[in-house]
């Protein structure tokens, strides 16, 4: 069986599966149950000055029977006292010395406040701290959370403050509510961060109740924007993780977060450069028990592919991500339909007709009306392949006309007059 142990910025973890700082890590008894279930690490629910929460605070988008494709919250940091939290952290670490226990922090933008809390945490025996520069609601209105993460100078400054006060590894948790993730990532590293984690939640309004006309979640007739997470945000998180993994200046380990629910999601984050992954929504949906298949599935995958350790796949797909201008313009694929498998739902036809290039007409085969791809017209966009409900029915096949790869960059360097627009 492949070895799942990882070392994340000096923090040893039995596997790369961590709980994100959120309700599932609200208190000692919960984190202990999670460790018992198999989680390798946990980032404690963010500590700070006591707050008051509103009710209600969660809303979701569903698709038919599939609930919580996306989740949104307007919850703040921990609502429990610092003393109680610290006491439970100390206790938990004592009971689970081999697990990774990271403490998330968020205090007002004062050097002493950050020094003070960082020291108190170090004293508990915890393995590291995570600076919450991401919470996009509530706390940001008070100059904390995303308000910090959106300004690279602040990110750098506060990271430096924390580094002054503690020898523990410092992870900076970034907000996705920026136009470009690289500047805040670099700022964290400049400030001395030992690692970064991303993403925190995304600004969002979840929808409107069509009877009361109040957006979700309803707080006595009013609503505020909240933070979006869950399966729907995974592609955004993957993009941001891979951006930082590709950046030479961000040369610290990455903890990937956002929409992870299965070993497959986790493997994708690892391949794009994450060393550990953190999970919140999927656990809020199904409980700690989901980690069992994450561990089992990932180790089976590694065994299948002949990898001995999870470390062998970290970042393997990073070199496969490039800029659009470096893609091969001469690479050509077309869709091909296997009529043995086709059930004649005609979704490919209408998708290509109304959403692509009108090249899936009907043809009669053995007395039945089948959609057939006109390969001369097909531009290989993938749409039909994506909509077909039958596994393996439409495949995208390469048409190799022997021409050599040619990128847009090469083309425009060679013939600058032909292509001027992006």
């Amino acid at each position: 069986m492949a070895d799942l142990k990882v070392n994340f910025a000096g923090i040893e973890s039995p596997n790369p599966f961590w709980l994100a700082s959120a309700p599932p890590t609200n208190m000692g008894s919960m984190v202990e149950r999670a460790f018992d279930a198999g989680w390798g690490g946990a980032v404690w629910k963010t500590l700070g000055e006591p707050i008051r929460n509103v009710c209600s605070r969660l809303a979701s988008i569903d698709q038919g029977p599939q609930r919580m494709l996306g989740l949104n919250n307007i919850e703040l940091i921990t609502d429990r006292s610092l003393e109680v939290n610290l006491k439970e952290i100390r206790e938990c670490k004592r009971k689970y010395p081999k697990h990774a226990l990271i403490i998330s922090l968020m205090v007002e933008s004062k050097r002493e406040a950050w020094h003070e809390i960082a020291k108190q945490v170090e004293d508990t025996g915890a393995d590291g701290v995570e600076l919450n520069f991401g919470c996009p609601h509530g706390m940001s209105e008070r100059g904390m959370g995303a308000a910090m993460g959106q300004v690279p100078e602040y990110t750098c400054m506060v990271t430096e403050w924390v580094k002054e006060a503690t020898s523990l590894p410092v992870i900076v948790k970034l907000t996705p509510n920026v136009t470009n993730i690289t500047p805040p990532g670099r700022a964290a590293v400049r400030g001395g961060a030992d690692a970064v984690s991303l993403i925190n939640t995304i600004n969002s309004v979840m929808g409107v109740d069509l009877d009361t006309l109040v957006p979700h979640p309803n707080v006595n007739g009013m609503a505020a924007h909240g933070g979006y997470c869950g399966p729907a945000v995974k592609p955004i998180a993957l993009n941001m993780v891979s951006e930082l993994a590709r950046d030479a200046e961000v040369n610290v380990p990455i903890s990937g977060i956002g929409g992870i629910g299965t070993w497959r999601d986790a493997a994708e984050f690892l391949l794009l450069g994450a060393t550990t992954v953190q999970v919140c929504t999927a656990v809020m949906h199904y409980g700690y028990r989901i980690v069992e298949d994450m561990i089992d599935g990932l180790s089976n995958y590694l065994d299948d592919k002949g990898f001995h350790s999870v470390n062998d796949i970290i970042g393997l797909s990073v070199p496969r991500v490039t800029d659009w201008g470096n893609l091969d313009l001469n690479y050509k694929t077309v869709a091909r339909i296997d009529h043995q498998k086709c059930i004649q739902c005609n979704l490919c036809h209408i998708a290509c007709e109304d959403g692509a290039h009108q090249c899936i007409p009907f043809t009669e085969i053995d007395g039945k009306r089948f959609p057939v791809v006109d390969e001369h017209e097909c531009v290989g966009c993938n749409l039909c392949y994506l909509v077909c409900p039958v596994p393996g029915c439409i495949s995208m096949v390469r048409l190799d006309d022997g021409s050599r790869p040619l990128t847009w960059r090469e083309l425009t360097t060679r013939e600058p007059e032909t292509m001027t627009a992006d």
Partner: protein
Amino acid sequence: MSTTHDSPINLAQIERNFREIAPPLTEAEAIMESHRCVYCYDAPCTRACPTHIDVPAFIKKIASGNLIGSARVIFEANPIGASCARVCPVDVLCEGACVEKTLMAKPIEIGRLQRYATDAVFTRGRDVLKAGAPNGKSVGIVGSGPAGLSCATYLARLGYAVRIYERKPLAGGMDTYGMAEYKMTQRVSQEEVAQVARLGVEIKTNTEIGRDIQLDELAGAHDAVFLGVGLGATSRLNIPGEQLEGVYDALDFIERIKTRDWASVPIGRTVAVIGAGNTAIDAVTQARRLGAKRVLMIYRRTDREMPAYEYEYELAKRDAVEFWWQTAPVEIVAGADGTRAAALRCVRTEAVETDAASGRRSFRTIAGSEFEIPVDMVIKALGQQKMVDWLSQIAKLKLDDAGRVTVNPETMQTANPKFFAGGDCVNGGREAVDAAQAGKLAAQGIHLHLSGERVEFAGARVPLHEETSEIKH
């Protein structure tokens, strides 16, 4: 019909036995099922539905929570869509064609979804169809079955003054008096009748054309007439003893069941049902539900030849009906009192191949094979007679050899241009949904005849999509 109710089970048990076999979908089920539909384009289910309801459209409306719109899509293509949701042989129609049947051997439950949407408008009392502005013309409709109700709906939408004449006390035809009670109750049929009435259609029940009102009077009162008279009484067995007490016509038996006044329904301990069509199945399954100890299905051929649908046959098997294949009744024998049926005398039959290629067989009786089965009730379910005598009174009307009214299949116009016809009296006895489609086509035909204008209602024909084409490879 003499009524002897001799059931060993109590009324509460009978009530339970007549529970719906396809209960309504819960909200959770409807959400799940409507999302499972892949929303085919040029969908095979729509092609397979005789009224060509835009099935993916109504299912996606359920998924989006637009139940009113969903029901509108259904009723626009099929005015008796709530009945059809319960009684259509979906296995051989929409669900039989569903791509999910091909993909997962589990078709979308189109019938139950259709019920979910139509139930929603009935319970909310919402009208989804509107009458047209009056155009000053009137149409008389004979018969308030699926064909008549459907034709009336479309004509009212076009602005015609429509009057339906129905000889029975309740409107709805076989939807009201014939459907197996575990599939559908009279309440559903009456809701559909009420929906038609709310379009301004006048429904005169207890009014028989040819008795209460004469045919020429009817023709004189309207600009056109639609005949949706269905079929007549069950065919006779033409064997001795048919007049004995304890011998029933399946239609009369079922009509009594439809009252749900169980104690008034005749039922014996051992019941022989003669025939093997869908009506015979309805008779055996309901006889069992009423408490008959033994129910025998008597048929001169075998299950290979039986006209009932596979699904219906399965129902009868589940109800532990005894199938007496290759058995032909020759006499119903009276008991000691000389008035009541006490036994069925039958002969065995044997198969003779008449056409080796198609495997078609005919059956002849075996001499000397007679035997008697003690029974205390016999139900005749041989299929219905055509209303030849009644129809022959209409001048110039043409009937084919089988007694069916001959019509132009596009306009449903008969040889007498003022008369249109559709449903069982034209097709010889098919499904409610076929009658609904015929009523729609007839309304279009009547409008063309009276106004010269061609209209096309939803699902009047298979939606026309691009033709297949040759492509270069």
